[in-house]
Structure formats: structure tokens, C-alpha cells
């Protein structure tokens, strides 16, 4: 949407087609420039990668398995379904890949105080964990609605030593937690590192967060070639901010024969405010600026950001990572949506066919796989990025599924 002001040399970094960029209060610009430089130096330093890879392996449990879901595949009677088991990582979701990478970067930059936002609590738990591991102070901002529905993760963060601060503004969900984290960062910018939890926000965050999650597709591509000797026909991942999806898609971007499918939260209806499906036609998502980046944003025609709804806190966000906006416009990836009800049903299906309880976020991807697999040939492979496990959702599941009487 903009290029370069005449007095500033060089192209604007951090663009994904028209999307991305940096739209932040001036106070943060020096910090973003410092971060960009420090990240570039770390990227070029073999010692940084050695420490990160060692911890990803020995502390987090990478590589994660690529599991052939035989019973689910047979039940659906179509494609062979493989699950990339990010749910088996330490702390229970892919989020630790990025939290660990940024935590090491913060330590390298000499920042002792860490802040982060969290929606479902998985990024907050991952950040609190990394802060314990590295001996850093940790403050987590979380919407009060999310604290209520993901209460177990609040306890986990507090047990790990984090200061969890509730945010009551707006819809008291992820968007409001990000705003509050940014207010903290603006105020304490000289001493504080902000570990943003998705491929969102101002440059360099979308690029950096994606790079820390690339390991998902680096492993998966190698694993599927070893197992099947060919690439999957399609890869499905849920998209809130889009970090697990971009990590799962990235190494397959040049493989034009691999369909990339992002699944947004369809919530409880197509009306603005009832969903978080930024890319759905006539859903209210149009390009705009929210929280530092230019991307698709759910908003009214006056440019006020709309409220969102999803049964899964981690997908309940009005904007989406700018690289997904580009992949949407170019058509390299397609974005569909899945309702609360379908995600809940998929949770039960996966639990009862494979003995795997997915996070409600990841269940959106499972639901799309359940829809898609029967339409595919039996020799085709459908890969699902199972981004997290569902233990955190037991409170919601008990209520929504009425488990006392559920059969």
C-alpha cells in the first residue's frame, strides 16, 4: 500500500506482496530496528542455531512424528491421512518452537524482562516455560474471556512463575491482549523484549516467527518422502494468526502440486462478529492495518475492528498474518472455514478413531480433513498439521459436549 518516503533510502523490509510492513507508534521503531539487526546476526551465527537445535531436540522433543492415521483414513475411505504431531512437543503445541527461538534471541540481546500475549494460553505457557528455562522475568497478557475459558493454562503459567495479567478491554480476547502487550512494550521498551506469539505484527515479527516454525515443514517434507516416496496432495492447517500454518506450508511453497489449505474459525455463523474467517467472501474481512501490520482485517465499513467469535481462543482474532494475505491473493494457498460445531465433532472423531485429543484450534484442521479426505483418491496423501493437544480444552469440551451424558 505504500512504498518508500523520499528521504529514506532502500525498499521497505518485511513486505509480503502488498502486505506486512510496520505500522507502529514511533517509540517502538528503534526497538524494531534493534530487533531486526539482532535477529539477522543470530541468523548468521552457527552457535545460535546449535543451541536452538539442541534444545528443540533434547528439551522440546523434536523431530515430532509424522503419524499415519490408519483408522481415520479407513473410516473416511479416501486419502491417506498423516498427522504432523506438533501436539507431542513439550508444553503441548507448536508454540514452543518460536518462544524458544525468541527467548534465546532476547537473552542474546541482554533483555531480562519478557512480555507476551496469549489467546488459548499455549503461547503464554510456552513463553513462561522458556523464561523459566533461561532465567528471565515473564509477564503474560491475556484477555479475561480467554482466562476464563482456558483457565488451566492460566494456572500453568502462574505455576511456571509468570505474572499473568488479565485484559478486560474490547472483547477481552487475543486482540486486546496484543494491544495491552504493545502498551507495555512502548512503556518499557528499553528493558523489555516482546515475544510475539504468531506470524503477525510489525516487521521483523512475521518473518522471524515463520522462520522459527519452518522446522515443521522441513521435517514433514523429509518424513513423507522417506515414508511414501512422494509429496502429499494437500496440507491442512488451522489459521488464527497463522504461525503453525505458515510453518507447515513454507517448505512446500515451491511444490506447486501440493495444495495448501488454511482453515479459519467459522464460529457460529457468517454474520460479522460471529466468526473469525478473515478470508471468507462477504465475511467482513478486507485489507487494513491492525497492530502493526497490513493484512486482511475483520472490520465494519468505517474501519472499526469487529468483534470475533470462535469456540477456540487461539483462532479468535480479527486479523491474520500478512504472508497468508499474500498467499490468499496469489492463490497459492486456499482458505476455508469450519464452524464451532464441526470442530467439536472432529475432536470427538479423532479422539475415538485414533486416541488423539486435538486442541480445538487444531480440530478445525481435522474437520477440514474429514470433509476433504473422502473426495480424494486412496493413493493420495492428506497431511494435517496437528498443532496442539486438547487437554487445555477439557473444561470447554465437558460443557459443549455435555460429556456426562455424551455417547
Amino acid at each position, binding site marked *: 500500500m505504500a512504498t518508500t*518516503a523520499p*528521504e529514506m533510502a532502500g525498499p521497505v523490509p518485511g513486505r509480503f506482496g502488498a502486505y506486512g510492513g510496520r505500522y507502529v507508534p514511533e517509540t517502538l*521503531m528503534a526497538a524494531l530496528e534493534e530487533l531486526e539487526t539482532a535477529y539477522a546476526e543470530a541468523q548468521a551465527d552457527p552457535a545460535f542455531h546449535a543451541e536452538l537445535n539442541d534444545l528443540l531436540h533434547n528439551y522440546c522433543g523434536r523431530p515430532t512424528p509424522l503419524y499415519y492415521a490408519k483408522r481415520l483414513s479407513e473410516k473416511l475411505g479416501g486419502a491417506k491421512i498423516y498427522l504432523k504431531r506438533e501436539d507431542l512437543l513439550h508444553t503441548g503445541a507448536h508454540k514452543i518452537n518460536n518462544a524458544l527461538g525468541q527467548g534465546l534471541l532476547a537473552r542474546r540481546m541482554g533483555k531480562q524482562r519478557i512480555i507476551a500475549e496469549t489467546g488459548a494460553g499455549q503461547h503464554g505457557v510456552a513463553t513462561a516455560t522458556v523464561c523459566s528455562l533461561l532465567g528471565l522475568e515473564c509477564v503474560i497478557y491475556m484477555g479475561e474471556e480467554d482466562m476464563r475459558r482456558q483457565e488451566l493454562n492460566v494456572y500453568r503459567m502462574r505455576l511456571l512463575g509468570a505474572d499473568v495479567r488479565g485484559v478486560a478491554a*474490547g472483547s477481552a480476547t487475543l486482540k486486546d491482549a496484543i494491544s495491552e502487550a504493545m502498551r507495555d512494550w*512502548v512503556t518499557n521498551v528499553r528493558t523489555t523484549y516482546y515475544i510475539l506469539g504468531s506470524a503477525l505484527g510489525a516487521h521483523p515479527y512475521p518473518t522471524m516467527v515463520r522462520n522459527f516454525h519452518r522446522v515443521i515443514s522441513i521435517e514433514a517434507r523429509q518424513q513423507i518422502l522417506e515414508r511414501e516416496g512422494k509429496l502429499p496432495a494437500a496440507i491442512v492447517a488451522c489459521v488464527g494468526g497463522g504461525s503453525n500454518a505458515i510453518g507447515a506450508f513454507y517448505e512446500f511453497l515451491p511444490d506447486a502440486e501440493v495444495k495448501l489449505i488454511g482453515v479459519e474459525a467459522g464460529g457460529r455463523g457468517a454474520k460479522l462478529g460471529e466468526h473469525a474467517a478473515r478470508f471468507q467472501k462477504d465475511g467482513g474481512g478486507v485489507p*487494513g492495518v*491492525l497492530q502493526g501490520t497490513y493484512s486482511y482485517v475483520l472490520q465494519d*465499513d*468505517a*474501519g472499526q475492528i469487529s468483534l470475533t467469535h470462535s469456540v477456540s481462543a487461539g483462532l479468535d482474532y480479527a486479523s491474520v498474518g500478512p504472508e497468508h494475505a499474500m498467499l490468499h491473493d496469489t492463490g497459492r494457498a486456499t482458505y476455508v472455514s469450519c464452524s464451532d460445531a464441526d470442530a467439536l465433532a472432529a475432536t470427538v472423531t479423532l479422539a475415538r478413531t485414533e486416541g488423539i485429543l486435538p486442541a480445538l484450534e487444531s480440530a478445525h484442521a481435522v474437520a477440514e480433513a474429514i470433509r476433504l479426505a473422502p473426495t480424494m483418491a486412496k493413493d493420495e496423501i492428506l497431511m494435517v498439521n496437528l498443532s496442539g493437544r486438547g487437554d487445555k480444552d477439557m473444561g470447554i469440551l465437558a460443557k459443549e459436549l455435555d460429556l456426562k451424558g455424551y455417547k
Partner: protein
Amino acid sequence: MAIEFRNKPGLVIYLTAGDPDLATTREIALAAIDNGADVIELGVPFSDPLADGPVIQRASERAVARGVRLVDVLALLSEIRTARPQAGLVVFSYLNPVVRMGMENFCAAAAAAGADGVLLTDMIVEEAAEYLAAMRRHGLAPVFLAAPTSPEARLKAIAANSAGFVYAISRVGITGTQQQVAGDAGELVARLRKVTELPIAVGFGISNAEHVQAVGKFADAAVVGSALVSLIEQTPPAEAAAAVGRFVAGLAAGKGA
């Protein structure tokens, strides 16, 4: 119809437009102008004001809930322009409502309404090419923020791309009141003086006559926002204009609030 600081120091008054309602904001703005404000920043209420503290967040939330839109704020600005042809009027907004209207459409509408300048909280100079071109086409002054954390190269670019005045942020942080004017402010203004001849207004945390006088020792103008928005919040709407008039007169005269 220009940004001009007649008082020493000059006084810039920020108001969240539409809080408590548009008609009252109009009366408040006129009272502020009549009691010594050189420039009114008309704040466009936004659903996600991430650079603002609790006072302006609440005002914004109330105005958004009333359905106040960017077009309403421009219509209000036009009324204030008609009533007070000499006042400096600046549209103060987060970027998204402007992007939604379209940069060209927005600048055309702001100029037609009689605005002198525009300040976009989350627009930095590197991203501003399209914005600056549209602002130039319509003869509007872009006001950029300078922060205590901005290095010299950024201050130069901010100064080179600003017109009317440069807004120097007194301290790192969000909007809101504080006890004293931060030590950061004097240093930032001194650094800006080296790169610009434009007037420099200092804002964030300037909430009483003593602060205004303190800022006057090193800057050309003081911006008062949260203190007034808070006063408006605490005053019945019918009395708000008179209360703001007295408050601004106190700021302008340095007699205490």
C-alpha cells in the same frame, strides 16, 4: 486557517471526537479555542487504540459505541472551521479508519472540511509515501511523532516529512497524565532543533499549567490531551464546554488549573 502558535508557549488541545457526543465536542472545541488553544487535535475514536492509556481508551470506547465514524469527525471539523476560521485544526487518527476510507478520499475530504493537518498515530515515515503524496495534493500538513527513542536518522526523516509542527513525545509510553514533565522531553527537543526549523510541540503527560510552563522553557507548544478528556468524562455534558473553557484559560494563562 493555519497552524500558528500565537501564545508562548502555544497550546494544542486533543479531544476525542464524539465523547460524550458530537454536538458537545463542538461546543468544547469552540470553548477551548476561545480560551487560548492554538490548535485542536480532533481524535477519531478507534476500537483498538494501542498507543493510548486508560483515559483515552475509555473515551474512544464510548464514542465508538455511539457509532461515531471518521466521516462524522470530518463533518464536525467542518463546523468548527466555519465557526472559528482562524483556529488550527488537525485530524488525529489511527491508520485503519483512514485506510478504509482510502488515502486519497480521506485527504480530499479532510481538506474540504477545512483541516490544516493530519496526525496518524501508527504511520511511520518509511511507510508514508502514498500518504504524503495525497497530503501534498490537498495542501495538508502531515504531523509526525518523534520519540525519545528515535535515533538521529529517524529524527531527520521525521522533520523532513513533517509540516506545521513536529510532535515530540515527552517520554516512552502511552498517553496519560503524570506528575512531572519527563527529563526525556528537553533532550529530545534539543535533538530535534538540530534538524528542523519547524515549531516543536511536546505531548504525553502534560496535564496542568505548571507542566505547560515547564514545556514552554524549551519547546514551542504543549499538547494537553488525557487531562482534558478526563475532565470531560467527569463533567455532565451540559457543563463540559464551560469547564473545559476554564481549564484551558488556566493553562494558557499559567495561573494553575
